[in-house]
């Protein structure tokens, strides 16, 4: 961690330093790091009915990844999750970046009001957002069709959440609607950190506001864009609430909206007739951990290193 200025030698203040660090480190270790590691440990064990937990090596992984019943479910949820992520990257982040860019235009009136309003959905619970859209898109209520009618697209309306072909995409867009606030907020803050003089200089150099954004602002906030992308990745591969609230643990229709989070929940707690299995649950969690770790390492080593942060 970069540090400026001299630090105080702790030997002059051993007791305070330990007292400052211990509570946070202990709670964090006990309720975060230990469970994560223990989950991985549990994924190498199995409990036969009525027996004691026993070490089974990679058996659980073999089950999840190769057993015909499990593998199809697992890969289905993995690819669904990839689609879910792709929609966020292709829709949520560009919209967030564009809105942040517009909000950072010089001499824009009502800037703060717009920003406050646009971030509002992000503050709501995912569960609440899921229900809001479930109601609006419900053919029973019909308000979704009415809204499309205003822009003359009523014919397009359908029971999107109920159809296998469209349920996942619809849920992805609902999630995008909610989370646009994150790229918007973070990139807007990064754009504000760009000195006004730089923008003025580019304007004097003959750049339009669009050119200023493309040639000056965007390159300077690329590190933030990369950070937003990895946050999106982690958030998406850890998502659960929305699907659970709207479609339940079964992530219907016919598992078409099943993602890693719902698969983890079902495996862990069981559903309908299938009993929950903590060891298989821990195995799914460990696989999710691997996926997220892969994404984070890719970000840290392949992307973040290449993006210089410029002193402004």
């Amino acid at each position, binding site marked *: 961690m970069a540090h400026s200025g001299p630090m105080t030698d702790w030997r002059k203040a051993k007791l305070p330093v330990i007292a400052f660090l211990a509570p946070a480190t202990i709670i964090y270790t006990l309720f975060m790091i230990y469970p994560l590691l223990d989950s991985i440990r549990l994924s190498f064990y199995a409990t036969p009915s009525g027996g004691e937990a026993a070490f089974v090596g990679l058996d659980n992984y073999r089950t999840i990844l190769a057993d015909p019943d499990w593998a199809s479910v697992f890969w289905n949820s993995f690819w669904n999750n990839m689609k879910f992520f792709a929609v966020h990257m292709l829709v949520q982040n560009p919209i967030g970046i564009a809105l942040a860019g517009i909000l950072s235009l010089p001499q824009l009136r009502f800037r703060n009001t717009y920003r406050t309003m646009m971030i509002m959905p992000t503050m709501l619970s995912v569960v609440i957002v899921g229900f809001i859209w479930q109601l609006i898109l419900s053919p029973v209520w019909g308000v979704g069709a009415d809204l499309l009618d205003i822009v003359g697209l009523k014919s397009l309306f359908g029971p999107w959440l109920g159809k296998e072909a469209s349920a996942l995409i619809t849920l992805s867009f609902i999630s995008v609607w909610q989370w646009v606030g994150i790229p918007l907020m973070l990139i807007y803050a990064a754009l504000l950190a760009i*000195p006004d*003089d*730089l923008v*003025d*200089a*580019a*304007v*004097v*150099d*003959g*750049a339009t506001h669009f*050119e200023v954004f493309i*040639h*000056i602002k965007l*390159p*300077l906030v690329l590190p933030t864009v990369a950070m937003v992308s990895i946050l999106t990745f982690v958030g998406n591969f850890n998502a659960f609430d929305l699907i659970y609230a709207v479609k339940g643990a079964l992530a219907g229709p016919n598992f078409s909206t099943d993602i890693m989070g719902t698969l983890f929940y079902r495996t862990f707690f069981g559903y309908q007739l299938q009993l929950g299995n903590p060891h298989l649950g821990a195995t799914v969690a460990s696989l999710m951990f691997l996926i997220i770790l892969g994404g984070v390492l890719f970000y840290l080593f392949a992307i973040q290193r290449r993006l*210089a942060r*410029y*002193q*402004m």
Partner: protein
Amino acid sequence: MADLKLDQIRKRYGAVDVLHGIDLDVKDGEFVVFVGPSGCGKSTLLRIIAGLEEITGGELMIDGDVVNTKSPRDRGIAMVFQSYALYPHMTVYKNMAFGLKLDKQDKSAIDARVREAARILQLDQLLDRRPSELSGGQRQRVAIGRAIVRQPKVFLFDEPLSNLDAALRVQTRLEIAKLHQDLKSTIVYVTHDQVEAMTLADKIVVMNGGNVEQVGSPMQLYHHPETRFVAGFIGSPAMNFTNVRIDAVAPGKVTVSAPGGIKSVLPFEVPQSEVGKIVELGIRPEHLAPGDEETLSVNGEVDVVEKLGDSTYLYIKLANGDRVTVRAPGHSRIKIGDMVTASAPAGAAHLFDGDGKAFVKVDYPAEFSAEE
């Protein structure tokens, strides 16, 4: 190169008037400096000329064209910013080429211009560096280079030296002066430092509170300040002021006095109606000298002595409580606590009425005149 004309330029932010109708003519090739205390509107005026701020009222002409509603790129200007405002993600070369590229200029033409500017500013070796790898002085030169390559009609400088340390500031000042001689370009330059203004300008515009106080050559402002503000702003150390009473006036002559010793006849044209009024007398420290040989004398106790080597500044407390700075020779032996009389020739005096307007001085020796 081109001339620049400001006609009743006004600027208002909401309910606040920042500029109250500025008139100014800048001739082709002239080096004009806007100087004034912070908040006087000088930077706003520069940004208006650049097209970075909208004009609330009045007319701005560059090279004979009204440019009020033109965007900066269509005005033929280039600007050097106080913070340099170099694009941190571009090399020196790209920083300088950016404007030309946006202009869709031919690649080889861009290259030629960038290299020419780099040669003039001795940046040849630095073209592949990023701004973060440059020293303050080098960044400053890149900022100037970025302006030069655009071959603008008018160069605009916004306090370009204020981020440099003292030594570099003097050196860069010289470089800018030389650049102006070489390029013979029209330059508008903003600073709060009157020394910069005096050394660089063909013409100084002294601004205060959104108004132009006076426009003139450095020597005109030094010798013939039209207002008390200009008199106090130009010159270092600042001009001394003390209140005096007008006792009598005659054609080309005025008799003033103050409690505690001042009583002089000074060469000013003062209307009869001023008799009996309190006005302000101004004398520059460098025109006062210890002793009572000259007409206009003040006396009091020395309470601070500053020895600079070549000269010594004495701070004398007058009977009315005002403090007067006197430049004495470097070898002066005067100490704190001494009672001292200092005097100046009558022609060195300045006299300002109750509104801070200068009375007209008549019949003064050539050493106090801007005429050459």
